[in-house]
């Protein structure tokens, strides 16, 4: 290494901070759009499936509380995924806006990591907002103070894995195929992620249970449920945590590889 490697190390950290600050700055100015984007979908999901169907008697009493952890998990996971994937596809295919950031004095992979970190931050804000909104729509939220650290850990892990999946998709997919790919990927992801049902209860629907077990979102939902509704049958929290860590490593590796391939010709 050249004698300035320590300084380039410090420079890289500074550059990383500046990249993050740029994203925070831009989001800060479009806060309303951001909130609308991340909150409306889970809010309606909660309202219709948790409140309306419950009040009409189509669902069991505790279904709303089964649904809420799943919806929060889904919010964290999908917000992170979309916030990495969409901007990347557009940046790499059309605007090339990211090029100036790729020319910053930090390793190119760190630009990808910054995208993941920032998307995770956005996703966490969205997920945390779901707690008061859930309380507002459903009238109660099943959680104890003791469970908060573990819940927070699952939210962070879930958002990170979602962002890593977004990095993989965003660098693999070309702009002309983005709509197709998202239609093919997002809908199954949403409905096989055990957000609307506990995974363990699928014992009688074995093939579907197996499919759901492949979806990383399942482990976020199950992890959240394990902490918020411990009385309900669930995948052990440590299994969910390990599964998420595994997915994080795999998708980050594929995603960063894809990012480097797109960033450097």
């Amino acid at each position, binding site marked *: 290494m050249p004698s300035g*490697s320590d300084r380039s190390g410090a420079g890289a950290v500074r550059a990383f901070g500046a990249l993050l600050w740029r994203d925070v700055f831009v989001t800060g100015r479009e806060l309303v759009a951001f909130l609308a984007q991340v909150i409306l979908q889970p809010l309606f999901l909660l309202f219709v499936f948790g409140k309306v169907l419950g009040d009409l008697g189509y669902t069991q009493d505790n279904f709303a509380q089964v649904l809420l952890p799943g919806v929060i998990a889904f919010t964290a996971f999908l917000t992170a995924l979309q916030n990495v994937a969409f901007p990347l596809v557009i940046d790499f295919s059309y605007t090339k806006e990211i090029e100036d950031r790729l020319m910053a004095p930090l390793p190119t992979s760190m630009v990808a990591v910054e995208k993941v970190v920032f998307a995770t931050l956005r996703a966490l804000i969205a997920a945390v907002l779901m707690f008061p909104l859930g309380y507002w729509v459903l009238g109660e939220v099943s959680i104890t103070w003791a469970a908060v650290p573990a819940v927070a850990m699952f939210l962070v892990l879930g958002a990170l894995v979602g962002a890593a999946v977004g990095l993989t998709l965003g660098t693999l997919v070309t702009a002309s195929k983005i709509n197709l790919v998202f239609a093919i990927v997002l809908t199954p992801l949403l409905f096989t992620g055990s957000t609307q049902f506990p995974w363990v209860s699928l014992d009688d629907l074995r093939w579907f249970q197996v499919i759901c077990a492949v979806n990383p979102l399942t482990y976020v939902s199950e992890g959240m449920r394990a902490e918020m509704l411990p009385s309900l049958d669930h995948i052990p929290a440590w299994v969910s945590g390990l599964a998420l860590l595994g997915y994080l490593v795999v998708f980050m590796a594929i995603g960063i590889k894809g990012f480097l391939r797109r960033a450097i010709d």
Partner: protein
Amino acid sequence: MTRAFPATSATSVTATDGGPAVEVRDLVKRYPKRPVNAVDGISFTVGRGEIFGLLGPNGAGKTTTIGVLTTRVKATSGSANVGGVDVVAHPVAARARLAVVPQRVNLDRALTARQNLVFHAAYHGVPVAERNRRADAVLEQFGLADRAKDKVDFYSGGMGQRLLIARAMMHAPEVLFLDEPSTGLDPQARLFVWDRIREMRANGVTIVLTTHDMDEAATLADRVGIMDHGTLLALDTPDALTRSLPGSTTLDLTIAHAAGDSPAAIIGELSAVRGVEQVESVASDQSGGGGMPGGPPPAPAAPQSAPSELRVRLYLTSEAAALIAPVTELLLGRGARLTAISLGEPSLEDVFISLTGRDLR
């Protein structure tokens, strides 16, 4: 107004002074799934404080070369150093030393013009107060101060191009790469950009630029490399390049001669003068067959009525000025007189076409 930003501490630390600013050796780049090399074994160096121009037809490999030098394209083989740093081994350190103005506008459209500048400096670790000061100075310098708060979406193409150059200056790079900096600029803006480039050079910045514009290369660059099909065909100062084109210096003469003298005899004698490669007569009412020598001279024009006037073009192998004296003497000896004279130097464009041909890429 000149502006020398002090180099940021991070960039000055490992700079190896003395060596060339850019050093490229046997550089090869083949893009995946391509049958031929986009850059096919080029070598050159650029001295510190030099303006180096890369000239070449579309697809010659100019942008690819700049891409490798700016760490955006991975070289297939060969080496490239910028500011004494190996761009392949230490891309991060290299990025701190260089700046690039890309061929395509890639401004951050979520930001205003000024924010584009300030954030760019922030990525490069320029302290807050300093980056604000520089942003204001550069906006002023590039005539964009009154549009500083506009979103860059609302910028015209030329303004965007100026802002790209302004942005590149924000972190005080040692070496600045400009990929077709004046494409899309009006004549005023083009001259303006040339001035800025010279100014940066005066402040010690090394400049590497690509262009299709012969004027730009000839007036701006200290040395020019002509590229085609990924190879460097020629590399020298614009002057030396044009001089290297044989027989392309011309001397146009208008001669008033005695009514009895024959134009063919005069032409014959002129052809014998040392340094004259060939002589062709030019019809009086047109500016001449022009273009490149090589074909047989056209038949001498029909003799004209008195006062007899003859126009000829001499293709020279030596400098035109040196031939004026012997030619004048020769004509006086025949009782003829020179009534007009004009020197023709070949242009860089002649060199370019003679090296790269006329085929469209």
